[in-house]
């Protein structure tokens, strides 16, 4: 896999089928419906339990707006990922082009996915810091790899967009 910055886009080239599949799973990974822990993390409380009224209002008025924002970011990512469905040969490496204008949506969706997966599997801080963990033996191990792989992409996007002169 090779990642580089083109003028108005980020390109991930030579993306092998396994990593392409992990990317295709981003929109699915951000949906925390089956995981109360993930839902709780993505929509965390804005104050301590003493602030009952504020927390209740937050759930009614703010959480739906946040949900809409997150879904909007995920939809942009989903559309970009359509490129990965166009491969003529099923097991060939492919290229994904992320327009720079979509960088924030990608950062948001990748973060949603990382947080939701980490909350679902209840990863410890030690596990999250263990970048030399052996290859997968379980769905949980794969989840940890996803969190790290998505984090790697986030780092790259952050580095490339912060290097953009018109972004301060």
């Amino acid at each position, binding site marked *: 896999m090779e990642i580089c910055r083109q003028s108005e886009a980020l390109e991930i080239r030579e993306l092998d089928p396994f990593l392409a599949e992990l990317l295709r799973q981003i929109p699915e990974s951000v949906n925390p419906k089956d995981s109360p822990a993930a839902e709780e993390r*993505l*929509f*965390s*409380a*804005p*104050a*301590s339990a003493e*602030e009952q009224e*504020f927390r209740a*209002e*937050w759930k*009614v*008025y*703010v959480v739906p*707006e*946040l949900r*809409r*924002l997150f879904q909007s970011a995920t939809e942009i990512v989903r559309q970009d990922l359509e490129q990965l469905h166009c491969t003529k040969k099923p097991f060939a490496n492919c290229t994904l082009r992320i327009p*720079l*204008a979509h*960088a*924030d*949506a990608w*950062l*948001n969706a990748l*973060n*949603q996915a*990382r*947080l939701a997966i*980490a909350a679902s599997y209840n*990863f*410890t*801080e030690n596990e*999250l*810091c263990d970048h030399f963990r052996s290859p997968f033996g379980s769905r949980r191990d794969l989840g940890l790899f996803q*969190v790290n792989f998505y*984090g790697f992409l*986030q*780092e790259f996007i*952050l*580095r490339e*967009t*912060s290097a*953009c002169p*018109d*972004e*301060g």
Partner: protein
Amino acid sequence: MSGRRRADEAENALQEIGVAVIAQGAVETPTEKKEASAKDEIQAPWNVVVHNDPVNLMTYVTMVFQRVFGYPRERAERHMLEVHHNGRSILWSGMRERAELYVQQLHAHLLLATIEKAA
């Protein structure tokens, strides 16, 4: 605060982020915010607190602090490291309504943030 007003403020806060997205994440100059925040701080002491989260990347958290509060990189990094080492950092203090808006923006970036009464 009425529910309708809170809904409007939520929408406005998220629109602010939308504008930042369109503007390619340009960091606002902190001068105006500093003036406004100085006035707010006198009126009512509420803290915006960000809590440690082992998943969010340090570089991402720094970028969010720069965008939401208009802090320069050095100050944003200092807060990020305080969160990392101490488990929490007070990012801003001032009027409650402004603090709530900041928390909304931080939640929109998926950070663990709360408001709390200043001691």
